[in-house]
């Protein structure tokens, strides 16, 4: 089941009991953010929220927490809503193998219904903007899919990037924009600014649920997010041509904002309560001049709350961060069984692996740190044996407590790269990194007394499946 736009996915969430419509009047602040914040505190199958009665607005429609639970993440991928997390990640990895799936171009994009141009652009008249956290510098677009092209190779479809970045609204037609240096749009901007040129950009809001997942996914520079969306959807991703930039944008977006990042200009931005659970900014950031806005009639404004984890952002980028690391590690080390990179975008990663020989697990940990994503994240790696489920934290804690001899199994490497938002980095962008080897030593690494483990009974797996069937049948 592939969704072509946000609205059809909201309908499914509604039918599955995973959308809560809040029709009582609420305040734009602090109610919208506080309600979305609360979804992260009421259990892991929280619903999406839909607001349509916000004080002072007449036609505001706001969707939040759309991906903010394991049930919603499963439904976004067309899976049953009770699919366990480890299975969601495995299915994601399986569908990845269909990449690339060519997109399907359509001409009748619903966002062509309404247009504002040039002097008439007023983002506040299109979007019911609001603040998330107390200390935020302003109102943010934080769940957009931002499209840009490589100025040196504008016709390369694969190098066209679709990514999610934080965007502060700093005027009726002006935005401040954060391109993290590790991310693709920062490379596009550097190439444009070296030539003194503006960088055209398209910002799409309110996208289909898989578009939001691939826009937040750490993919290779020349891999197309649209071709990955096709693989994950199991159907070509519908795209359309943006009228001003000519960029490829999602067909089903609620709003398409086009303009340029003004060359060689920086202006104060932030602070913003980030996914790290800490504020970051204010820094002098690039600025965008908006030249055109296209939007569906009565657009749904989709936003997400982020701050102290877990929030929607963690559900949204957790699985899609696990899979590239899993794929890249397995490419050279097929012994790798599963990767849990769901904590703070993978600043901490848990990997289960079989061992080729003594010392092997530590090598897997070092490789995780040198993957493209690892260079900016992966500050701590925990290695566990092949029969430990890295998504099962009690099992991981057992491995840590029983298998780790700190003197030999904890390795700290100084002064490696990490993204500047990492609160523990010192200076910003530089961190030591740690490997904790919680695997059982194998020859020639002959340490400890691990020869008599107590294993699950041979009949246990069969009984687990039987119990699950009985529970499901009970309803």
């Amino acid at each position: 089941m592939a969704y072509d736009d946000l609205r059809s996915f909201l309908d499914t969430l509604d039918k599955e009991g995973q959308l809560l419509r809040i029709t009582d009047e609420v305040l734009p602040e602090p109610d919208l953010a506080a309600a979305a914040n609360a979804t992260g505190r009421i259990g892991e199958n929280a619903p999406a929220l839909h607001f349509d009665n916000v004080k002072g607005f007449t036609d505001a429609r706001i969707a939040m927490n759309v991906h903010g639970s394991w049930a919603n993440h499963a439904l976004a991928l067309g899976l049953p809503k009770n699919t366990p997390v480890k299975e969601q990640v495995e299915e994601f990895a399986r569908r990845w193998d269909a990449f690339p799936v060519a997109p399907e171009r359509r001409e009748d994009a619903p966002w062509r219904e309404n247009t504002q141009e040039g002097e008439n652009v007023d983002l506040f008249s299109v979007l019911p903007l609001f603040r998330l956290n107390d200390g935020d510098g302003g109102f943010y677009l934080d769940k957009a899919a931002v499209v840009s092209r490589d100025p040196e190779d504008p016709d390369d479809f694969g190098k066209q990037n679709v990514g999610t970045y934080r965007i502060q609204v700093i005027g009726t037609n002006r935005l401040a924009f954060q391109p993290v240096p590790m991310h693709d749009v920062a490379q596009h901007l550097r190439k444009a600014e070296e030539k003194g040129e503006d960088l055209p950009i398209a910002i799409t809001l309110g996208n289909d649920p898989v578009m939001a997942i691939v826009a937040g996914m750490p993919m290779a520079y020349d891999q197309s997010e649209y071709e990955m969306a096709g693989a994950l959807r199991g159907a070509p991703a519908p795209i359309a041509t943006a009228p001003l930039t000519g960029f490829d944008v999602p067909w089903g977006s609620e709003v398409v904002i086009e303009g340029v990042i003004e060359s060689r200009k920086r202006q104060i931005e932030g602070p913003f309560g980030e996914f790290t659970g800490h504020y970051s900014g204010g820094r002098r950031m690039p600025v965008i001049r908006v030249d055109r806005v296209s939007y569906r009639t009565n657009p749904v404004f989709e936003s997400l709350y982020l701050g102290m984890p877990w929030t929607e952002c963690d559900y949204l980028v957790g699985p899609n961060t696990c899979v590239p690391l899993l794929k890249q590690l397995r490419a050279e080390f097929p012994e790798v069984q599963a990767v849990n990179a769901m904590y703070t975008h993978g600043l901490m990663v848990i990997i289960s692996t079989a061992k080729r020989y003594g010392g092997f697990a530590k090598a897997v940990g070092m490789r995780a740190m040198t993957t493209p994503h690892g260079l900016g994240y992966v500050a701590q790696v925990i290695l566990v044996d092949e029969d430990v489920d890295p998504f099962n934290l009690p099992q991981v804690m057992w491995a840590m407590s029983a298998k780790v001899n700190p003197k030999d199994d904890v390795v700290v490497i100084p002064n490696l790269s990490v993204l500047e938002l990492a609160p523990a980095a010192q200076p910003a962008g530089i961190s030591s990194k740690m490997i904790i080897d919680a695997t059982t030593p194998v020859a020639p690494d002959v340490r400890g007394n691990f020869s008599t483990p107590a294993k699950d009974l041979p009949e246990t797996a069969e009984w687990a499946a039987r119990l699950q069937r009985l529970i499901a049948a009970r309803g």
Partner: protein
Amino acid sequence: MNHLPVECPRCAFEEISLLATSPVPGVWDVVQCGRCLYTWRTIEPARRTRRDAYPDSFKLTAQDIENAIEVPAVPPLLK
């Protein structure tokens, strides 16, 4: 609303401009500081809208703004 706030809760700058007014007339305005670009809705809680209630940890000085680092740095022009 009848008149704009007189100072920025965050940096105390006294040039405040109007960005938006509520679609339902007279309910709120969205205003912005001309120096630190702090943006707020006039009906937000005092901790976000009034200088005397604004948390010290979020306050900015003119120096903070001037000395903020560039991210990413502007690269040298290619000749």
